[in-house]
């Protein structure tokens, strides 16, 4: 029996894990043995560590090996404060904050140099735990461990063993819910976009550093929570619990469960706790086993159990169908009438790559409410010009102004937020997002949902999400692809992905829209439709730049055309002037041909 796609996407499946969690919570009442409860506590603690790693590693792509050190921070802070007779509410909160602060201190430098530096900085952090604990022997007990941590006291009431069990399970439920809410929200989608293509993330207005740091902090906090809870488990902690082997166990759990997943963390943690960690007979083999898990897991099982599960469900249990709101979506003129084009003026722009001059004294104007064509042979500098305007390259000399505002010194995400939207020569459509989502994500950076609203599901959240989806559907309808709204966008054919990119560029309320070869890969009919759409956008006031090889299409829609050759403007004017300019014929067909024509 299969369920429809609509049900699959909209049914509240989160009820299943919640009911499971409530059953686990009730286990002591059902008479479960203390040994079982102890195993469940271990699974919960490890799952908190793994789910944090999944946010940083699985979703944002930074291998952070420091979870075990942040676990130590949480445990030692909570343990020390508990001995000073502080209430659990205080020790827990301070432990979380301490883990976040240590995470921030290591995360900012760690993110500076790309993925290795994060891995090495956090790996180093784990090696430091014994040293720091030894330095603070008086407070933290040194290498022999911190003893005498009392049972937790919550708001003045002493917790029993059963109370401690409920606390651990409840904390785990709350953190999993929060992380899940974060990941399925546009914030989580932005992480996926960035993981697939940092360039796209920036051109949609997201600061990559900020996204990564947010992900890293959100991953650090559950580790601090796990540490605080761990401190109370036996009333005793020692540096050996937080060593490198713990870091490796966390990573192995993440990979087995599926790094890009939430509930996979729980599965991976359970497998690690019930499997390798309990089999004490194989102690001397444990490093080899963990190493093999990392190697083989990353080689052959990169999506983990979660990916396997999703694929099977989607293939065997879900029937594809077009959702009713996608069926009902109509092209909205109101949406495009919101577009307010602005004028971009580029003056005396020079760009050199080493000794190679890609653009030489280029001055162009993209006037508000017009379509400007930018043509020229391969390597003439068209895409370089787009890349400079959108902030990916710094100009060697010259100025770029949008309605007087200087863009030349801005970062790509700042340029995007100022109102420059673009498409790419090779469409960049991230995996794991539907067509509607990949259009709606363009609305997130400018006026999306806030992080607290997403994590806590505040009232405005659903409203914003629904409005963004509605607008995305209308934009898709404008390009006649609304029926594809809920399929995996990265699997669409090339031409459709190009149209999707156009829809995404329109979604950002852009003041300037840069289209990089939108017509290549489209069939004749689709080119016609695209040309009509461009005319419609111009009529409503948008400023559009069209970089194209399809000469006829440019001539049919552009108000003004610039011809680039080896980095210089060789001709400009309205389409007829350019068409009849002998220099253009020469650029495209060679001198001999141009002479023969005359």
């Amino acid at each position, binding site marked *: 029996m299969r369920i429809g796609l609509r049900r699959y996407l909209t049914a509240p499946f989160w009820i299943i894990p919640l009911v499971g969690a409530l059953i686990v919570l009730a286990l002591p009442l059902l008479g479960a043995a203390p040994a079982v409860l102890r195993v469940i506590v271990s699974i919960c603690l490890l799952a908190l560590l793994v789910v944090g790693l999944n946010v940083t590693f699985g979703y944002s792509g930074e291998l952070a090996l420091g979870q075990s050190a942040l676990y130590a921070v949480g445990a030692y802070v909570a343990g020390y404060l508990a001995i000073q007779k502080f209430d659990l509410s205080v020790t827990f909160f301070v432990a979380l904050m301490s883990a976040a602060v240590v995470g921030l201190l290591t995360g900012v430098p760690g993110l500076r*140099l790309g993925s*290795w530096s994060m891995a090495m900085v956090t790996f180093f952090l784990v090696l430091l735990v014994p040293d720091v604990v030894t330095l603070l022997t008086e407070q933290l007990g040194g290498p022999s461990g911190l003893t005498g941590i009392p049972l937790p006291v919550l708001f003045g009431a002493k917790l029993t063993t059963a109370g401690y069990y409920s606390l651990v399970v409840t904390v785990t439920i709350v953190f999993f819910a929060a992380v899940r809410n974060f990941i399925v929200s546009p914030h989580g989608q932005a992480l996926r976009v960035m993981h697939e293509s940092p360039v796209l993330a920036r051109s949609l207005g997201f600061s990559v550093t900020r996204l990564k740091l947010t992900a890293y902090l959100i991953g650090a906090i559950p580790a601090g929570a796990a540490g605080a809870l761990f401190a109370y488990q036996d009333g005793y902690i020692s540096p050996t619990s937080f060593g490198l082997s713990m870091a490796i166990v966390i990573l192995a759990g993440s990979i087995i469960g599926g790094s890009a997943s939430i509930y996979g963390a729980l599965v991976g943690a359970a497998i690690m706790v019930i499997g390798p960690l309990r089999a004490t007979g194989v102690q001397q083999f444990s490093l080899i086993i963990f190493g093999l898990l990392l190697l083989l897991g990353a080689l052959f099982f990169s999506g983990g159990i979660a990916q396997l599960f999703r694929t099977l469900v989607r293939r065997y249990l879900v029937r594809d169908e077009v959702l009713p709101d996608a069926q009902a979506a109509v092209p909205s003129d109101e949406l495009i009438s919101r577009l307010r084009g602005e004028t971009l003026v580029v003056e005396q722009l020079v760009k050199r790559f080493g000794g190679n001059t890609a653009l030489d004294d280029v001055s162009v104007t993209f006037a508000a409410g017009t379509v400007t064509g930018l043509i020229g042979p391969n390597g003439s500098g068209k895409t370089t010009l787009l890349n400079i305007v959108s902030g990916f390259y710094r100009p060697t000399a010259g100025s770029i102004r949008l309605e007087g505002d200087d863009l030349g010194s801005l970062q790509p995400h700042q340029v995007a937020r100022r109102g420059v939207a673009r498409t790419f020569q090779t469409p960049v459509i991230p995996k794991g997002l539907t067509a509607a989502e990949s259009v709606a994500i363009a609305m997130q950076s400018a006026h999306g949902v806030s992080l607290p609203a997403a994590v806590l599901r505040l009232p405005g959240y659903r409203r914003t999400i629904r409005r963004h989806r509605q607008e995305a559907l209308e934009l898709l309808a404008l390009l006649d692809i609304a029926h594809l709204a809920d399929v995996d966008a990265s699997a669409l054919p090339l031409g459709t992905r190009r149209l999707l990119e156009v829809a995404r560029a329109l979604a950002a309320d852009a003041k300037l829209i840069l289209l990089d070869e939108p017509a290549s890969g489209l069939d004749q009919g689709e080119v016609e439709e695209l040309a009509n759409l461009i005319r419609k956008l111009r009529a409503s006031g948008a400023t559009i730049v069209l970089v194209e090889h399809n000469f006829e299409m440019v001539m049919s829609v552009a108000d003004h055309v610039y011809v680039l050759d080896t980095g210089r403007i060789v001709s400009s004017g309205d389409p007829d002037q350019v068409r009849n300019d002998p220099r253009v014929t020469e650029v495209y067909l060679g001198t001999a041909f141009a002479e023969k024509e005359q």
Partner: protein
Amino acid sequence: MITTLWAGLSIGAVYALVAIAYNIVFVGTRVFNFAQAYILMIGTFIAVEAATRFNLPLIVAIVVCAAAGALIGAVEEIVAVRRLARTGSHNELVTTLGIGVILSGIALLVWGSEPRSVPYLKEFGVLEVLGGRITMGELLLIVVALVAGVGAWVLSTRTSIGLTALATSEDRDAAMLRGINVRWLATGAFTLAGALVGAVAPLVATKTYATYHLGEGLAVKAFLVLALGGFGSFLGALLAGSIVGVLEMFAARYLGSEWQNITVFVLLLIVLLVLPHGLFSRGKAQERVV
């Protein structure tokens, strides 16, 4: 004082040697080989076996260790790196870390957790150089690091194979189109780097002893050396190795041994924040972004 300086320079030479090996792999393949220092660790145990069980002279032990290191490096590339390149995923950090952990596990299983010393160069005792004390092994480490650093620099800038590797690291696809065998080059880089850290393992063992967890500390500190010296810079690795080693030894001497790693860690954070491209970066190559 001078003795501490010598101790710093010699441990710095070890870091620099591992960093040079990181660089060889990086220039050849653009991969960061987490397991590099772990290969050295295995080498130190092989040196112990060579000396105590088979009574091999030092020079033979060096050859044996280099061969073992080369073999591990080559196998690692084929098992843990090449497959990933084909699937298009970038999990080399995880797979090479996995290899490192496996190597640690093997060392623990075969040789146990007690540190082992190696008797090589004991006959020279402790030398007096410029008013400080230094062992023959330490002195040789400094010399070998200098030779390896300068040699790798000459190799990468003056020979066709080195230039080939540089070209490949700049643009793999363009290199392939030029007829460079990128795959062979990758295996070659891992093999050469493995041979280098293998060959110096007997000398390193005279200083650090052989322990199964030698790889971890070396891995992170050599990474700092790499970051400070600039990725891809062999001469930068030599200078940065000296800085890190000396700083570490002086911190240990004047602040206490618990401060040794913490001081180096703080230096790492500062380097990443203030000098993210290191002292000798070749400048970030302009990459075509879209």
